[in-house]
């Protein structure tokens, strides 16, 4: 495209001068680089100390919001704010000084280089002869180039304008309101623009395994108590699911998402929540860093897609037993995908995904615990890029799903493994506290109720942990613990007064949440893998054979209804306004009143 005009350095400048110029240029260049380095270091330091984006400050403000009268938090905020502002002012002052230094250095560098390269006499070019043929070619070339450049500019403006559409109503339509209701279905279905949902949005939906916060609690109290699969009574619709998987359905507004997989194929499904129509079905394929070997899983239960997907209303995220993670937008376009590598897991990866703000959290426990392979990973939910990961976790492969809790001090991610329950700072992934409360193969996920974190595993104990400690809190922060009627697979449930635990062989036990006293125990004579849920004051259990048991939550056992779905199931249900979505072995059911 271009050619160098000046190719030789004339020796007419006295050589010694030229050498000095080269040395000066080198010195000035070194100086500039040093200043740049200083600026770069200061820049990265300033990112951490940015008063507008400081996670610590944000956390303190949340804490203050929950606890408005707390003088100590106020004082902390004042101090931190001042500190950050001072740091920023220092950073700016340094930038201004360094700017001048850089300018000076660059000036000297430029001068010296110019001097070293100065040529008094230019090389004489070869004589050009006018040639009609060459001139004609040049004109044709120039004309085509003009057309290409002009065409490119015009085409890009046109393309951009094609994508934009106007929403302005025509002048004839008069709108008297200032703005229409924001709760219209259309407004809800619209693509949101904030990077992550508000807590209210999350509460209205069922965005992850066991719903908002992973607690198995629905805000809707109008869900059905009984149904009849044979007559179709109380079943709004039933749709076949292309591939099996014990992963549970999740719901966001008018969409239900599922995952399914086989040894070789992995898929995400999106159903219309109102009609049960399969809106899209997308394969997760060509994922970078996918292992050619299939993972070890419990094949008879469909363990290739055991982890429940998660959504933040912007995208839906799925993970499979081979460590592949993928994100799709609500139209089914792949947003990104990454392979985390084949997990070294005895029964296959089952821990489900969860989101925290614009982070996707993956608990990736594997190996023996001594090999340093287990980690909690946070990916940027928009790009899939690694945001942070924890230090190696001192636990072997585990199967529980982490939860994010909000405490007055901070937001914490609670994880379970053998033998530690570990809490991490949700913003940064640094460890906050750990408690030695678990044992063996840890499957039940933790819950958070009445200000306490609950972990439980059969063969060890159920523990109520106060989440305001630091370091090893195994001795200091256990409010109570008990070792009867413990779950082995299903996660516990709480109505904030009591905690309910369900064993795979059907033993349901109930403890007082404050005292840890066992209130009752009941043998349901059914097998369970699905975790219990709470809607209003009713507890919902779904047995392996598809029997739905509805109980009254309370200090005494009281069964309200039993309804048969007629299909085996392992997944936990998802709740929405007036509805329950249940995934059987072959079908997705929507239970609710017509």
């Amino acid at each position, binding site marked *: 495209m271009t050619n160098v005009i000046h190719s030789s350095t004339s020796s007419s400048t006295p050589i010694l001068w030229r050498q000095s110029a080269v040395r000066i240029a080198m010195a000035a260049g070194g100086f500039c680089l040093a200043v740049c380095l200083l600026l770069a270091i200061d820049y990265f330091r300033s990112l951490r100390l940015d008063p507008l*984006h400081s996670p610590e400050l944000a956390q303190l403000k949340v804490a203050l919001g929950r606890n408005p009268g707390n003088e100590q938090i106020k004082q902390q905020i004042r101090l931190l704010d001042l500190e950050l502002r001072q740091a920023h002012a220092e950073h700016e002052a340094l930038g201004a000084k360094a700017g001048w230094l850089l300018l000076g250095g660059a000036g000297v560098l430029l001068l010296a280089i110019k001097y070293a390269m100065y040529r008094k006499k230019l090389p004489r070019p070869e004589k050009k002869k006018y040639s009609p043929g060459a001139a004609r070619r040049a004109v044709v070339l120039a004309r085509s180039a003009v057309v290409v450049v002009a065409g490119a500019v015009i085409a890009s403006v046109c393309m951009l304008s094609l994508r934009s559409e106007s929403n302005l109503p025509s002048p004839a339509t008069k709108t008297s309101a200032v703005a229409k209701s924001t709760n219209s279905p259309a407004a809800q279905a619209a693509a949101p623009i904030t990077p992550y949902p508000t*807590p209210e949005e999350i509460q209205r939906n069922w965005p992850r395994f066991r719903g908002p916060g992973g607690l198995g609690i629905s805000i809707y109290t109008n869900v059905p108590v009984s149904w009849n699969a044979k007559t179709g009574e109380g079943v709004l619709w039933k749709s076949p699911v292309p591939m099996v998987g014990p992963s549970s359905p999740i719901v966001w507004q008018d969409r239900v998402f599922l995952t399914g997989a086989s040894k070789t194929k992995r898929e995400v499904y999106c159903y219309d929540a109102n009609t049960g129509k399969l809106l899209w079905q997308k394969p997760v394929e060509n994922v970078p860093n996918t292992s050619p070997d299939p993972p070890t899983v419990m094949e008879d239960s469909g363990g290739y897609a055991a982890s429940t997907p998660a959504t933040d209303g912007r995208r839906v995220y799925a993970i499979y037993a081979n460590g592949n993670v993928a994100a799709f937008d609500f139209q089914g376009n792949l947003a990104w995908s990454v392979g985390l590598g084949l997990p070294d897991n005895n029964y296959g990866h089952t821990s489900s995904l969860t989101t925290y703000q614009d982070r996707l959290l993956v608990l990736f426990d594997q190996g023996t615990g001594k090999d340093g392979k287990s980690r909690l990973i946070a990916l940027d939910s928009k790009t899939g890029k690694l945001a942070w990961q924890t230090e190696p976790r001192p636990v072997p492969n585990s199967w529980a799903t982490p939860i994010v809790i909000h405490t007055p001090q901070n937001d914490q991610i609670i994880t379970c493994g053998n033998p530690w329950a570990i809490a991490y700072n949700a913003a940064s992934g640094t460890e906050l506290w750990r408690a030695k409360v678990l044992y063996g193969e840890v499957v039940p996920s933790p819950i958070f109720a009445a200000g306490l974190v609950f972990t439980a595993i059969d063969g060890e104990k159920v523990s109520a942990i106060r989440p305001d400690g630091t370091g090893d809190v195994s001795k200091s922060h256990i409010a109570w613990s008990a070792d009867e009627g413990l779950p082995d697979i299903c996660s516990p449930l709480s109505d904030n007064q009591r905690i309910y635990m369900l064993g795979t062989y059907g033993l349901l036990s109930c403890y007082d949440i404050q005292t840890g006293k066992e209130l009752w125990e009941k043998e349901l004579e059914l097998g369970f893998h699905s975790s219990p849920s709470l809607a209003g004051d009713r507890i919902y259990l779904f047995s392996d054979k598809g029997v739905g048991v509805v109980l009254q939550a309370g200090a005494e056992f009281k069964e309200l209804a039993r309804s048969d779905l007629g299909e085996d199931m392992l997944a936990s249900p998802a709740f929405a306004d007036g509805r329950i979505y249940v995934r059987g072995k072959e079908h997705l059911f929507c239970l609710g009143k017509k």
Partner: protein
Amino acid sequence: MSVSRVLPLQAGPRAAGLVQRLSLGILLFVMTALLSGSAFAVERFPPPDFDPGYKMPVPTMPAPRAIYLEYLDVAVLLAALSLSVYLVLRKRSRSWILGLMLFSLAYFGFWRKGCVCAIGSIQDVMLALFDNGYAVPLTVVAFFLLPLVFTLFFGRTFCAAVCPIGAIQDVMLVRPIKVRPWLEHALGIVPFFYLGAAVLFAATGSGFIICQYDPFVSFFRRSGSVNMLAIGAGFLLVGLIVGRPYCRFLCPYGALLRVVSRFSKWNVTLTPEDCIKCQLCDVACPFGAIREPGPALPEGKPAAPSGTGIEEGNAGPSIKKQASAKAMIGWGVLTVLLMVSCGWLGARSSGFLSYENRTVALAERVAAEAAGKAFVSADTVVPSTVRLSASEQREENLRLASQAFRQTGQPVDELYAAARVARNRFKVGGWLLGAFVGLVIGIKLISLSILPDRTIYEPDRANCVACGRCYTHCPREQVRVKRMQRGKTNPAIPA
């Protein structure tokens, strides 16, 4: 063998190698400067959010610049322009021009921080023409007009040594490469498009894009957004080997000056009477502004480029008139067609372009929310520690703007009506902009078809920025200077 005789033999290539490495060093340094770019960035923070106990400082407003200082700017501009004319056309000295250039860089660039500026003044003048409510300061008008008037008489002497943006690029040039003529022609039309767009946005009161995207102003101020610093650094980086890339391929004021300069009374000339066709001026000019001679006149049988209507073998002094009327009509028709079709496309795109207008953007946002196509969310409960990307930030700003608008309780219809008025202006503007773009393309294509009738190497009136480099290298010019020094000739006023 003495040391002094060894040195020259070795030092040459070694020096060259070192210089090359050093050039690489500069690249590295600019890149790193990029990274640390936002180290310069100025940010503003909300005041600490506690109501009791915190005493809000009374905001102080910086006093406006004293009026005499503004007149001083105009006086300096006038003096610099006059001096530039003298140095370019009379003194004909590159060193003096360089000196003035450095002064302008220091004064208009680093001291006045790139504001006030002739390039940006286009927009003020346009806005003032279309919006009666906008009073444009006289100094700005002076900055707009003076360089144009000087160019009309003396060629681009403003670009030579007065414009700080030209100057910063000129001093950055280290080892120029020649841009191929076809590329030069093709990219040379971009400044006109940019000019058209800038006029459209300014005239509709939507924004001053020239200022917004001025790549060098962040260097003059040593502060700016990371993006703009990066773009500026990119231009400077390219400017190490490509002479004045912004001037040649983007500057909208340069586009105006190019047109005006074609009609200038005087301009840079070498020694037209006794050009020996050594082509040294062509080698010396880093801006591709030296034009080659056309076919030899009167002998020879030049063939014309195809499509010009010049018949093969039709030689002689009549070449200029040879472009047959037919072909010219053809080109004319093509240009009109281009103008109409581009105008139509411009009008079609006007809806999209109008999003730059704040009223339109707000009205669209409010309408989208009302139609359920945009998300209306309450204030985020969790304070955001997330850094938003530019487009997300724009969306977020619009969301906040619409929230604020709704709080004012103003009727939506008024907003919609105002947006419709703005949009109609854009429609007309889109037609005009499109037609202008079509015209530029048409004229460029026609001009490419006209065979040059010059017989010597000479600076192109439009593209020559009067930097004076060719003076130093033209052997005939040197002879003329020597002769003049001997007092044998009168200083030649170029005519």
